[in-house]
């Protein structure tokens, strides 16, 4: 079987059908992206709140 070239994809929280079609791996990558995004948002809010408090 021919080996596929590694291509870099940007995974967004919106996900895609392509990710779902990748099965467990795709679902995990997508959910990780959501978590990362949430964390980012949370961090941003915390920083903003900290700055406000200062």
């Amino acid at each position: 079987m021919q080996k596929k070239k590694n291509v870099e994809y940007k995974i967004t929280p919106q996900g895609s059908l392509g990710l779902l079609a990748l099965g467990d791996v795709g679902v995990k990558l997508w959910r990780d992206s959501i978590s990362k995004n949430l964390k980012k948002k949370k961090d941003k809010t915390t920083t903003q709140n900290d700055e406000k408090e200062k």
Partner: protein
Amino acid sequence: MTKKKNNKVLLIGWDAADWKVIDPLIQQGKMPALKGLIDRGVFGKIQTLDPPLSPMLWTSIATGFRADKHGIGGFVEPNPDGTGLRPVTSTSRKVKAIWNILHYHGLKSNVVAWWPSNPAEPINGVMISNHYQVASKPIDEEWELPKGTVHPKSMAEELKEWRVHPNEITLSMTIPFIPNLEKDMELRKAKRTSGVVKVIANASSVHAVSTYLQRNTDWDFMAVYHDAIDHFSHLAMRFHPPRRPEINEKEFDDYKHVVESGYRFQDMMLERTLELIDQDTTVIVVSDHGFHSDHQRPLYIPKEPSGPAVEHSPYGIFVMAGPGIRTGGQRVSGASVLDITPTILAHLDIPIGEDMEGRVLQGVFDEPKINETIPSWELVNGDFGMHDPDLLEDPWQAMDALQQLVDLGYIEEIGEDKLLAVEKAKRENQYYVARNLINGKKWEQAIEILEKIFEESSITRYGQRLAFAYLSTNKLIKCQQMINHLRDLEKESALMEKKEILKKDPNDPFGNKEYEEPMYLEFVEGLLNLKINKPRKALPLLEKVQKKNPANMQVAINIGKINNQRKNYVASAKQFIRALAIDNRNAQAHYGLGISFLRRKMFKEAIDEFFAAIEENFFMPNVHYHLGEAFYRTGYYDESKQAFEVAVRLSPGMARAHKWLVEIYEKHLKDEDKRNAHELFLKQNIKGAVYIVTGIKGSGHEDFMRILDDKGYDIVKNDKIKDLEKGYIISETKKLKENHHWLARQVGKIMYVAPQYLSFLPPDFNYKLIYIQRNFSEVLDGNIQKGGKTNKKQLLPLKTYNLTSKSQEKIEIWIESQPALQLMFIDYSDMMDNSKLILQQLDEFLQ
């Protein structure tokens, strides 16, 4: 028992996948994974069973048995506590599935979402039931795995995270299916849109957990079932291009991409699945039935449980590729859903149960398989990874037992409405099993079930199938009586039904616009009329049915046959071509089309069609006969002789084929010996046709014989008796049992034989039967008066009634026992009202 296999099998189920959708997508390069699989393997159509209901069919695929044996009759079964109904479970399956047989052989199986598979069976491997992906609660509530979803239980926690909740599905995942969602906020709230989202989520859950198992477990056999194509199709096939005039333009525009995107999504998932297998894996992609996607899409959903199945088409898809399988994308034909389990067992060199109703698809293998068999896997004891026997029970019987306990006062009364619902569902299940039996030509078993449930419920659908089963077993009188009874019921409920139709039903996917009956009764009545040689009556009935059911191949074939009989050969050709558009491998349709060409002197085309029919079914003597005739007309006497010889080999009594052979050997091939042999055969064996008139006492056969005599027909009568009413009852018929030599003198004549003497007619004549029928109460009235003794107090003249019934039964039994009897029913009142028309029909019949 342990047996390690190098060759693994991956069985992928795509519910409702259909080549008519796939073929154009492959041509446009939109399903590359399936295309690749076809190219390195074999492919073909797969025939479904009737009724095309998925739990029943997927169980047939996994077992090789029909529903009467495997026990999964429908979608629901009673709850063990009698509180209502629940989705059908794996504990109702009465036979071993392929994974049980593989377990016995020490092989590991992963089974994902097979329908029905809850509770998961304790097999060597992993089983994830069909309840796994179903989200019953909103995303912010705890989404527990239902009981029995995963085997082994220890893996439940690890596996549950691969479920995708519909609320997780994003707009960007849905837009490929419904592009208008981008701008149309109202469309986002539509029920159909939510349906599409749910199907995407369910498919993603099944795919995610199966790829996880592919990557993280060892297995020899893996079966994954996807319902996405079926669900996308039920939601939106009516919006699949081209748009039909009755489909709303806005809705068409909104949902026209759903089906195509569904197939493409399924193909994308297949691509990933195939990336994860090794080279020792044989892959099978199979569907349980197809789905009408063209002009055959129905315009109504029958008002009955499982009505949406009318959208299903009789042929699904089958693709197989891998080690030991022919390569190059060759087509295999004649596959049935029953063949999957035997074929996989043969591929894995495991014996096949001789009681399995499917067969090994030999055409898929690059080398012929010599299959080992055993009488039945059901007779083998041992560890098959099945449920505890205490769990395995017939839920319907369990429900009866429960009711007994209620009656004894041991448990609380089950609500009347719940019991009614269970009773209704039980009958419905039995109805599906009966249809499945009809589909397998197990007529008597089907009749037994249908008689019982029709007597209990008077549900017309049950009576209609019963009428069809009667017709198929030549119980023509019973069939006619059932049709009459159903017509009476129809009249009674006509008003009520009208009101029902006007009621709004939220479950009607066509928005209550096209809610109509499928006209099955007209179909059966049409076929009955055809069988009793009343094509003029049959034709309008079948044409009416065809208007509502353009996709019914049998209707098209029968209308074609009538047109052939009536010498409307252009009209018949249209019908047979219509039938071939539905199934291009139907032998009857090829044959009928051939006749149409032959009679229009298009001999080359006729020969092609006859050959096409023979390719599908060699054992049709009439096809060989007409092939012989077509060759003769074109001057190919050798080929003609061969065809006629095959016809007489298949049907030695076919006098007309022998006659042709006498002609060919005498005039063209100059072979006197062979000519004489056929001449001798004709002299010795075939004594010609005798036309028999019969009818019970009082049916008016004497009037019929008088009409025939007046019109100059050649009837057998005793000239010494002047009174014709008695003269046509010749005394010899009473002694047929002892002496029938005199019958040879009656060839070509019309003769009355009383019902009680029919069974003494010798087998070495061809018979055409003309059966005079009359309203039963008129017959009784007449017979009572003829008896001379009338007792006004006697409301029901039992003796006369019994004698008349018995007489009728005798005719019925004789008709049933005659393999190729040609029949014409003549109604007494029709005869008296319009004897000219009846005689016209008679002339056609006697030809």
